[in-house]
């Protein structure tokens, strides 16, 4: 009898390489017309999506402080009610006008990425009886990144919820929590920079 139900091994990861935009965000590589112009993940919301509109800008910095210009960044988040648009979501039906997933390039010239989405509702923590502060799950891939990196963005205007958040409280190095919290810009606008290495290295997760 095998000791584990695992009969296959997960495929090893390989870097996304310098041309990941061709495959994932072809319009960012100049292939605007491919797929009849229907690009997945470019727009997260429409006029019927429920919730507070938010705008996020940022850059991803390497260990020398240089913004990376050939990466992709993906958001996966709950809707305004805190529900995920997924068959694995058993708590209720999420907003039909919100997939909760978006994908953007880091700009080929400036390195900046931007998202327009809605502020997510609160989602329960692992044991299901405690709510987490609102957050976006984030995944980053690029040349030089051998295995895609998971992190999270929390909101600077959720001081109380962040202070009580079970995951943020679990982190041993409380002096790194700030790397997970966006900076406020104008109303509804946030800046979230990701630092791959060095001083203020962003907290990345093994999920």
């Amino acid at each position: 009898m095998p000791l584990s139900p695992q009969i296959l091994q997960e495929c090893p990861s390989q870097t996304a390489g310098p041309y990941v935009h061709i495959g994932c965000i072809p319009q960012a590589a100049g292939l605007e017309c491919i797929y009849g112009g229907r690009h997945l993940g470019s727009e997260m919301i429409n006029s019927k999506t429920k919730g507070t509109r938010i705008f996020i800008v940022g850059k991803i910095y390497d260990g020398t402080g240089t913004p990376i210009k050939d990466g992709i960044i993906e958001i996966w988040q709950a809707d305004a009610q805190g529900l995920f648009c997924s068959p694995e979501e058993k708590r209720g039906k999420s907003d039909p006008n919100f997939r909760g997933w978006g994908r953007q390039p880091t700009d080929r010239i400036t390195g900046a990425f931007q998202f327009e989405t809605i502020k997510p509702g609160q989602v329960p923590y692992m044991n299901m009886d405690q709510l987490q502060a609102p957050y976006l799950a984030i995944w980053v891939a690029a040349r030089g990144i051998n295995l895609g990196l998971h992190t999270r963005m929390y909101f600077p205007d959720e001081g109380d919820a962040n202070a009580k958040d079970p995951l943020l409280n679990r982190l041993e190095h409380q002096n790194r929590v700030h790397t997970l919290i966006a900076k406020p810009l104008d109303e509804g606008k946030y800046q979230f920079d990701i630092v791959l290495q060095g001083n203020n290295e962003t907290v990345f997760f093994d999920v």
Partner: protein
Amino acid sequence: MSKSPPQGGFFPRNFKTHPPALTPAYKSSVARSPKLALISIGNGLSETTGPVFGHEELGPTDNDLIANYSAEGKSPIGERIIVYGKLRDERGKGIEGVLIEVWQANSAGRYRHPNDKYIGPLDPNFGGCGRTITGQDGYYEFRTIKPGPYPWPNGINDWRPSHIHFSLFGSGFAQRLITQMYFEGDPLIKICPIVNTIPDQKSIALLIARMDMANTIPMDARAYEFNIALRGRRSTFFENRPEGN
């Protein structure tokens, strides 16, 4: 009600399978690798759920790289191939209805990308990207042109073996994975600094597609089989669940 136990979080990732973040022989990793340890948080709702894509969002030639960029009546230059396989989880269960995206160089080893300055020519009839949604048992297929090897700035004389980049979604965001597929028998695999970021030969072998003469379309295209596994899911026996479960 289904008799199988409800699905839970994913099996923890086996990091011995994956390249470590810092692999100095692949120079781009040096400044782009986190130095501090990943914080293990396991799977919550945002990891066990993941985005869903519908067949209606894709076009009929999206998985046909021979057709999806070429002019009417034209074909890209190169070896015509079919790449097919099954996307499964570590329990061997096919993952149905999930998005696979691919991208690759043309037969001369050149990408249709403004940053690719390789001397190999662009092919006016080849875009180099495709996508599909897995069918029953996780089955998928693409038709394409075998990508050429290409030199790249790393060491003074480093060449990538022929490869196709794969971006994979599972049923949960924790399964998200990008990898590359190589071709059986390619002598460049052994000496590629990117392939060799993977620590062991057994894991590397998982990325090498097998030439499948039985499924080759006579007088048209050779077939390559590439099966892919993503993380498996635990069953959730006796765990606290939200109301309604």
